[in-house]
């Protein structure tokens, strides 16, 4: 494997350098029907799960077939996506904000060949490459983070928990039987690159053990004041520590009782790892929404404080999620989002109906926002 230069000269990095050019302009990628009718769309309709038509004021139509995908994808897979887009869609496609792929055609007669092509493709292991769905009052793709495949702070895997969950919820990816759309999100640690805190159902990786301290290396690897300042609960203080060989080193001490395992110290200081096979696992949250429709946007609430990591398919987690979805499907009113339903019936009823244990972990004791979550009323349900 001989090194091939692109033209870059390491001795003169500024020579012919191009910077600050930004992304490519969006409109060079528009399919013709989109370019022509932008800003002049009259209405849209979901014809069946995963298939939409948008009708322009001009009468033009664009048919969209939405398919799910693992957001983790190889160039081999993307080449296959390109082949499909070349064959059916004049070489155009788009991705949605939830990692779905959208293939667009400009007339109805092109729809069936496209759908049949997509349905026919499977991976060697048997899973669909391009399952059609993810629209309307169903469950669309899960937005998620890197997990064990590429990150240093996760408390669980992302791609694996998502694959297991989407397998369990697959029927609802291809159906629209729910009272409203239901968004599932996954973040593999509290940093929440995936911002799951406003999802109908959120899967969150969580650590439960305070950081270990690698005293021998800490002062060499980290800025002590940054490690101390990183802690939101002031659980970390500077300390002098005697190593086994008698040398005294500058390090830190952690007040374990104050630690809520956010891992922010580890972000600032690699000598304070938290990961632990027994300590780490899954938190389930529910009832968040980001749309302003009917009720205000709301945060998800913690409904299961901890589920152990059960590799490779996390059955306790997927069973619990499935149970929540079924209970919601059975009990909520049409149009009612998961959180709107739980608010209406009361969370005490929610735990009852979903057969979830309510434990002390679920009562907020973090900062001032805790108070407003306690019940300041004699109104409640038995």
């Amino acid at each position, binding site marked *: 494997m001989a090194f091939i230069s692109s033209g870059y000269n390491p001795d003169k990095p500024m020579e012919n350098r191009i910077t600050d050019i930004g992304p490519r302009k969006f409109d060079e990628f528009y399919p013709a029907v989109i370019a022509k009718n932008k800003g002049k769309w009259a209405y849209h309709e979901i014809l069946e799960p995963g298939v939409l038509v948008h009708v322009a004021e001009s009468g033009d139509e664009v048919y969209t077939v939405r398919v799910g995908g693992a957001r983790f994808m*190889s160039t081999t897979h993307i080449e296959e996506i390109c082949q499909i887009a070349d064959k059916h869609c004049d070489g155009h496609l788009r991705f949605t904000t939830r990692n779905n792929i959208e293939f667009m055609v400009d007339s109805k007669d092109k729809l069936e060949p496209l759908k049949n092509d997509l349905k026919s493709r499977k991976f060697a292991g048997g899973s669909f490459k391009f399952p059609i769905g993810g629209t309307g009052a169903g469950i669309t793709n899960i937005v998620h983070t890197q997990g064990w495949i590429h990150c240093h702070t996760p408390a669980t895997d992302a791609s694996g928990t998502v694959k297991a969950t989407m397998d369990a919820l697959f029927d609802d990816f291809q159906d629209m039987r729910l009272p409203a759309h239901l968004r599932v999100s996954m973040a593999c640690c509290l940093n929440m690159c995936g911002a799951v805190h406003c999802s109908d159902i959120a899967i969150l990786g969580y650590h439960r053990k305070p950081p270990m301290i690698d005293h021998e290396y800490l002062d060499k690897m980290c800025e002590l004041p940054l490690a101390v300042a990183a802690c939101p609960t002031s659980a970390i203080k500077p300390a002098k520590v005697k190593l086994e060989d008698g040398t005294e080193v500058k390090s830190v001490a952690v007040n374990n009782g104050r630690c809520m395992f956010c891992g922010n110290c580890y972000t600032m200081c690699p000598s304070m790892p938290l990961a632990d096979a027994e300590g780490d696992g899954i938190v389930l949250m529910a009832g968040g929404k980001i749309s302003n429709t*009917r009720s205000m946007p709301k945060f998800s609430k913690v409904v299961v404080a901890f589920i152990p990591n059960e590799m490779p398919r996390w059955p306790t987690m997927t069973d619990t999620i499935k149970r929540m979805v079924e209970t919601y499907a059975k009990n909520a009113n049409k149009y009612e989002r998961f959180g709107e339903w739980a608010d209406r019936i009361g969370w005490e009823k929610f735990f009852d109906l979903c057969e979830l244990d309510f434990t002390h972990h679920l009562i907020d004791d973090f900062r001032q926002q805790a108070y407003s979550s306690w019940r300041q009323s004699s109104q409640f349900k038995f």
Partner: protein
Amino acid sequence: MAKHETPLLDQLESGPWPSFVSDLKQQAEVRAKNEAGIEFQIPQDCCEDLLGILELSYKHGRTHWKHGGIVGVFGYGGGVIGRYCDQPEMFPGVEAFHTLRVNQPAGKYYTTKYLRDIMDLWNRRGSGVTNMHGATGDIILLGTTTPQLEEIFWELTHNLNQDLGGSGSNLRTPADCLGQSRCEYACYDTQDLCHFLTNEYQDELHRPAFPYKFKFKFDGCPNCCVASIARSDMSFIGTWKDDIQIDQDAVNKYVENDPAYPPEAGAHRGSRDWGEFDIEKEVLDLCPTHCMKFENKKLFIDDANCTRCMHCINVMPRALKPGKEKGCSILVGAKAPILDGAQMASLLVPFMPVNAENDYEEITDLIDKIWDWWMEEAKNRERLGELLKRQGFQKLLEVTELEALPQHVQYPRENPYVFWREDEVPGGFTRDIKEFRKFHQR
């Protein structure tokens, strides 16, 4: 024969949902065969080692990626995230496995030509593994070595006219919904504003000079498909000021259950039969302000009391449309829970015209004022929302030179502890105690 046995990961190949394990295995095989004759610039078997190290994490229940590593391209402080594995002897193919963030086009439309150009580069100089897309919106190229970073950047900029995205304490790659390109709800051109601001602030995007990350997100309407209200420091949500446009004939089509007018655009065409559409139950009763009525086959909306929640428009999209005087609301300060708890964005500007003609001058003025304040006052790793909480909403109004409005609050304060400023109280705070004592004995 696979390089590493992966009995745990193999169990993630079954089931209907696309298996990332199957995909990674096919990629490993394609690289091993190399029928295209690619001159790989990083280890050919990196995907096999990626499978191997992931299997080890599945066995141990812990990650095997080391903390960070400062790598990047010359002159930029973001766009590249260093990554090294903690078992390089076992998995030399992924010893260094850095990430590049490539700034996606607004709205995420692509041509196959563009994708193939990127993939061709990534097959030669990287692992061929990607995320389409990362949580912020970038195309994520997952896995390359340090010597390849400048080469990739050179090819991206010189051959593909394409720049990197943001990472670290800088402006993160802005992201948007597809907006007016294919959505009748969009109240402004999200893609144009997103693209304009991304280019306007290239320096802030590439060179970390901020206290912490800063995110712009652009939603075309209050449905908020990109979740700007929950995850961006500045959230631009399309809205309108005048009356919802009503097509009364189309309203009656919905009422008559005309099959060409399915409620919520057909979103409930699943295995469950919800029965006939009932405008009273499904629209009027669910309006949060109860500002609608339907009498004598005519829909009436008291627009002065409408809060533009989108429910009625979502349910009857062929009959109702946002008004004609369109713009956006600007909300600030959203963030995920790290560190002091999650924050939803708070309304700062109820209505802002979105005007491309003057290069979005009102918007860039506001951004500049907010950044001046945040860069001056924020502590290290303090998000805008946290500074807002620490110094108060009034401070934000002061620095942005905006008037207080009842729209800024859900309800007025419940305590009278007003920090009156001296200039607000006649005579000021300096008083004469001797003069006071003339009338009030000790």
